[in-house]
């Protein structure tokens, strides 16, 4: 059986550590009021798609491990290009891996930067065409797009001990 030699000393030492924590900075934040800046490369739960840049090559659809992207194109022989007639992403199946964004050769696809995008219905998770466009509510993240990342606010790190309350926007 284990013998207690210096009973209480170890616990006392531990207590000093705990008490010291009383005087330290908190590392938590009061979420809805106090927000941390998220990573510039955040892979938020939506895809941003630019109709203007998309050529309809369907590389993104082939790269997707989940088969979440559906793209229908019509050949436009007069102008020698594809017209995208349907671009649909089932974000319910999407695992936010970002492989489609990496694969797109024309910079037409971005991960979303905002993260509070919960939906009430499953059907709302299927997004199509212009619902995928970039807008102030749906900003693009800097994932695989360093030019966008440079413009986004710098990430707040817990190691920098966040103490001051962030100004409300």
């Amino acid at each position, binding site marked *: 059986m284990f013998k207690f030699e210096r009973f209480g000393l170890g616990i006392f030492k531990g207590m000093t550590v705990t008490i010291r924590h009383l005087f330290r900075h908190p590392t938590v934040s009061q979420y809805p009021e106090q927000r941390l800046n998220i990573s510039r*490369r955040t892979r938020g739960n939506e895809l941003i798609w630019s109709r203007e840049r998309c050529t309809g090559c369907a590389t993104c659809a082939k790269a997707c491990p989940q088969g979440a992207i559906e793209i229908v194109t019509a050949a436009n022989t007069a102008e020698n290009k594809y017209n995208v007639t349907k671009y649909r992403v089932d974000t319910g199946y999407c695992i936010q891996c970002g492989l489609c964004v990496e694969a797109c050769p024309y910079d037409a696809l971005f991960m979303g930067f905002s993260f509070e995008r919960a939906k009430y219905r499953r059907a709302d998770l299927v997004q199509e065409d212009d619902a995928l466009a970039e807008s102030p509510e749906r900003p693009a993240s800097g994932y695989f797009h360093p030019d966008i990342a440079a413009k986004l606010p710098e990430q707040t790190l817990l190691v920098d001990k966040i103490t001051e309350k962030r100004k409300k926007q």
Partner: protein
Amino acid sequence: MTTTEELTLHTEPFVLNFGPVHPSTHGVFRMRCTLDGEVVLDIEPVFGYLHRGVEKLAEERTYTGFIPLTDRLDYISPMSNNLGYCLAVEKLAGIKVPERAEYIRVIMAELQRLANHCIAVGSMLNDAGAYYTPFMYAFREREKIIDLFDMVSGQRLTYNYMRIGGVSQDIPAEFLPALKKIISRLKKWVEEYEVLLKQNEILLARAKGVGILAKEIAVNCGISGPVARASGVKRDVRKDDPYSIYDRFQFDIPTGEAGDCYDRYRVRIEEMRQSLRILEQAVPQIPGGAVKADVPHLIRPPAGDAYAHIESPKGELGYYLVSDNSIAPYRCHVRPTSLINLTALREMVKGWKVADLILIFGSIDITMGEVDR
């Protein structure tokens, strides 16, 4: 006439199902325990509640497309899983990884070891009944490491950062200063954690001599990682079969002697120190250059097979791939650490009380996602 035997109180062994959603089972794990009062006579692990057929899914996906799924195997340490899989594909296809990417990979793998051991020791002490103080302190430090992963990969849980032939993106400029801050912060924290618990009488009484795993059993069961090293098996894939660039760094392999819960806890703490040592050596050495070899998205490795293994935070993690020269693996097999480490559980818990069972189970450090695949 009544005999003495009839007068004494008999105890009958009974079977108690422990789990699958018991908070102490670290996931959906069920133990069928045969108990005599509070004494554990035997246990039978029942798993498969989280089985997703990941190996079969790999055969339907492209080589690159499987990387996000490896994140979901051992979700406590996804970076290591990414690394193990990418090494296997690189071995299969004979791809050379750029120098800078190798360093980034080592940094990520070691940070992941630290993050994993934070959870391992934190939750083990939680299981020992220390409740929230050590648990919260450990999680707080883990969050800081996860901040770094978030910075490079954009996700806090499923990083999907490693790629075949390198890593997906270069580290941002603010990464290395933040990493240096975290290294010095973690060093202080490990010392503080030691003060908090090293001589804590309750922990010593609960963990010393409890759940002893003999060296022979550990070797025979194929146990690896901190659990085996605590029993005195000096085996570490980083030293025994160096992969990536681990042969360039100085580090020791901490081992225990007794093979009890306390040794497993101590070995993990020591390993954290060694990981910090590797990080300190790696940071000033990072060279410039590309972070990804020129590998197409759809690769077709030549027909053949390859097995690559790494020292994941939990132990030896291997990926075996068979290629038939198509864009998807013909067969993929994962050698999961947790599943194999779990095979020794029965030997470790026999004769202990139910409360010890929880602690012993916690000291193995398993993730159910990896057990069931």
